[in-house]
């Protein structure tokens, strides 16, 4: 039975009481304790730096050439914190409430509250490290607002918030590396976790440059290996983002929670052809001023697709601003899951506007006109001409969104100031992940999961700017306490020997798999299988799911997996830098995870957040939750085959928030 170990007591006092009651390890003993951190994104860097600073010996691993290149670097929009600098009524409780509601009531209250509670400290910490957040003319920190909330609590550094936060966390890491308290293993991939007598005692890693397979012992292991959106092949994640570390942990006994909860972001640049290798996000902030539409008539949509009709020539009354039509109260600012589904609905109905039929317009013409008129008033221009208004409005839009418009132009060669942008939803984030208790420990003692790799805080849908907050909260402020509590039992253990048969067995398995790949007499490149898997997942376990599709997907994935092992061709050797080999291992794991995601989606007979089951919707096509039967976390235990995984339910108890049906009408 899973025990979430949520401390007793009133919600607002749980964390403080817990911190005061957990055990500490004295400084001399910390020096004889080793901790491994896999991943150097926001969660991993901050955890490794903090634990090293406390005195533990830390080994940090990342597969990129430098810790600074972890995928956190790509986050654009910002990071939430309940500072209430804007005096707009924000508070710890409000951030907590918004996050639980945004997650469609499928997250654990106590964890979310703690997240909101430590959020303010994150900003203090980052500023002290020299993170150059945006400031106003008075020299104080500036905020912006994000989808799904009514306050301005998002701190940002232009469109590069993730970069600045990660460089901040990496600077703390660098400081500990220079002191010798952290040993960095870059271009290293974790291949397996090692469990000795029921406790996690280390990992098997592979040096990606020399190919050497290494054993690393430790008293505790933290996985901060990021999300698994790349199971869809096309996503906004970096090419190397993968599930392997988490999946290996799952196979060694860690439960995988809510694997099917995927966030599909509504504003991404659409797929342009079969060569596409990844998708690019256009910041959510664009929905503040842009209007989303498709042609009202099918023949217009077809003409646009064929390049015979320009969108600017479609008359106002022939346009369907479908979000404004369906959700008059929130309009273009409905939450991500709702906006994405509505785009899919229009495109499926034949109103898509690019060659593939999978794109909608994001139009700035009205914003340019509106801003232009205001600007003309401010400047006291009388009877400005339409072109003057446009020029003035364009300036305003350029100042606000210039870098995003440039990026769009760079990728598509279209000028978004002159013609509406084309956008389509894309896989962006995975709320699911390794199941962890309140201490962020998985079901395997001594094995922790942090950041996007765990499932802990976002329920069935994550609010914008909350992932960065969670990563840093886990690493700076939660793990340093909770890991210590566990390690208090280990002060007399001494160094972990890597001669144990468990290490030997794990290493042997890793080496055999590598040899299998290299010796396989196949003829098909790894990417071929990955693309096919992505297609299956996107069509059946994407924005809308149904029982028949999911069952078919499970069968298709199993067949594809079998074919993969027979037909994959991996060139090169095991003793040299070999990216194809690295990829093969990752795709092999995705091929198992994908199946579990479908199993999970099939079992959850309701619609909630990013999980939309077509069988469970209202007459108007809105998501229909089933609180009576599904207010629980689905935690899956590995039993040898993804389809045979055993479901354990962690019931979610809401003591402080009343469950309501979300409505944005």
């Amino acid at each position, binding site marked *: 039975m899973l025990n979430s170990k949520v401390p007793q007591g009133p919600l607002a006092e749980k964390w403080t009481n817990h911190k005061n009651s957990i055990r500490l390890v004295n400084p001399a003993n910390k020096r004889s304790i080793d901790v491994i951190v896999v991943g150097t994104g926001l969660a991993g860097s901050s955890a490794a730096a903090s634990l090293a600073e406390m005195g533990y010996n830390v080994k940090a691993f990342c597969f990129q050439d430098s810790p600074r290149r972890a995928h956190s670097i790509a986050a654009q929009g910002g990071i939430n914190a309940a500072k209430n600098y804007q005096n707009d009524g924000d508070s710890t409780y409000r951030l907590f409430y918004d996050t639980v509601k945004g997650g469609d009531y499928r997250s654990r209250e106590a964890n979310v509250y703690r997240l909101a509670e430590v959020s303010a400290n994150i900003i203090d910490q980052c500023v002290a*490290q020299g993170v150059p957040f945006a400031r106003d003319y008075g020299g104080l920190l500036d905020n912006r607002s994000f989808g799904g909330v009514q306050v301005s609590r998002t701190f940002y550094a232009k469109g590069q918030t993730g970069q600045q936060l990660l460089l901040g966390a990496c600077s*703390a890491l660098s400081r500990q590396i*220079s002191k010798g308290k952290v040993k960095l293993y870059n271009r290293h991939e974790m291949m397996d976790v090692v469990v000795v007598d029921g406790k996690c005692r280390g990992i098997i890693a592979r040096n990606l440059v020399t190919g050497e397979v290494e054993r690393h012992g430790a008293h505790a292991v933290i996985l901060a290996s990021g999300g698994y959106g790349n199971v869809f092949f096309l996503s906004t994640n*970096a090419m190397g983002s993968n599930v392997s570390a988490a999946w290996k942990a799952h196979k060694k006994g860690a439960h995988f929670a809510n694997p099917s909860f995927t966030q599909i972001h509504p504003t991404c640049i659409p797929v342009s052809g079969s060569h596409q*290798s990844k998708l690019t996000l256009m910041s959510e902030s664009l929905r503040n001023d842009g209007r989303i539409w498709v042609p009202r008539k099918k023949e217009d949509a077809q003409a646009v697709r064929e390049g015979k009709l320009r969108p600017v020539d479609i008359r106002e009354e022939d346009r369907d601003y479908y979000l404004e039509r369906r959700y008059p109260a929130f309009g273009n600012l409905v939450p991500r899951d709702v906006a994405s589904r509505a785009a899919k609905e229009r495109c499926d109905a034949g109103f898509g506007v690019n060659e593939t039929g999978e794109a909608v317009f994001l139009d700035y013409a009205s914003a340019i006109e509106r801003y232009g008129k205001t600007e003309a008033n401010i400047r006291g221009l009388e009877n400005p001409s339409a072109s003057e208004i446009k020029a003035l409005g364009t300036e305003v839009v350029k100042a606000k969104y210039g870098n995003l418009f440039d990026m769009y132009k760079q990728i598509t060669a279209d000028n978004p100031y002159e013609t509406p942008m084309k956008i389509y939803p894309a896989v962006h984030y995975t709320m699911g992940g390794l199941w962890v208790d309140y201490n962020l420990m998985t079901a395997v003692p001594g094995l922790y999961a942090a950041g996007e790799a765990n499932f802990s805080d976002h329920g069935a849908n994550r609010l914008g700017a909350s992932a960065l907050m969670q990563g840093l909260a886990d690493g700076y402020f939660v793990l340093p306490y909770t890991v210590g509590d566990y390690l208090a039992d280990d002060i007399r253990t001494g160094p972990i020997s890597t001669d144990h048969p468990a290490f030997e067995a794990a290493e042997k398995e890793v080496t055999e798999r590598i040899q299998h790949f290299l010796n396989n007499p196949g003829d098909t490149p790894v990417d071929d299988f990955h693309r096919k898997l992505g297609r299956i997942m996107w069509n059946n376990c994407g924005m809308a799911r149904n029982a028949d599709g999911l069952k078919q997907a499970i069968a298709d994935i199993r067949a594809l997996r079998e074919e993969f092992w027979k037909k994959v*061709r991996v060139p090169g050797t095991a003793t040299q830098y070999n990216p194809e080999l690295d990829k093969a291992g990752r795709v092999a794991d995705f091929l198992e995870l994908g199946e579990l995601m479908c199993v999970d989606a099939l079992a959850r007979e309701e619609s909630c957040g990013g999980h939309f089951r077509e069988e469970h919707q209202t007459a108007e096509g809105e998501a229909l939750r089933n609180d009576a039967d599904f207010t629980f976390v689905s935690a899956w235990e590995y039993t040898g085959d993804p389809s045979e995984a055993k479901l354990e339910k962690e019931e979610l108890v809401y003591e402080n928030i009343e469950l309501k049906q979300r409505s944005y009408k």
Partner: protein
Amino acid sequence: MNLTLKVWRQNGPEDKGRMETYPVSDISEHMSFLEMMDVLNDQLVRDGKDPIAFDHDCREGICGMCSMFINGEAHGPGRGVTTCQLHMRSFKDGDTIYIEPWRAQAFPVIKDLVVDRSAFDRVIQAGGYVSVNTSGNTIDANTIPIPKADADEAFNAATCIGCGACVATCKNASAMLFVSAKVSQLALLPQGQPERELRVKRMVEQMDKEGFGNCTNTGACEVECPKGISLTNIARMNRDYLTASLKGE
């Protein structure tokens, strides 16, 4: 379009390396440069040959991983873009494209187009941080107002992605632009003041130790830098270094 690629192949750090020629066909102008490389590698794998190793990850110009020297230019033609942001519409049918790794003593080749840039990380480890503990028990973030102009300039310096194009493009393989970007970011902020002099001394020392060349103010780095990191950062670092050295004596 159809193209001829001349690509640097090097089978490990000890290998001498050579240029090899690969024709590619049916390349769409919508592809990114790296997607074109994917097409070539797919073909090489199918033909039972060794695919070309190259570094990449985010493919949107922010992680700093991609690093190709294309037709004699770091990150290829076009200003303000990384290799991964380069599109095939920048080329035309029949073009011959030369693709090489970053070349610098401090960046040894690992394989083909992949080089080892950990020297950059060691320079940062030498002092590119503020020595503050991560307990969160610092002062409130708004206690020290920072003039917007300073904050913006610090931010601009901090947008360096650590790609190494500046080193690759410099005839002396100098890392001054990269190092000065970090030195400047922290020199412009109040939080960076206590360690300002120590920091610049340590980082410059480490930079020299890693075998980067001297700066002769050619300015090629600024031209090729995908993030527009400005030469004024180098001037600022030189001033700080001078101050620090004078005081040190």
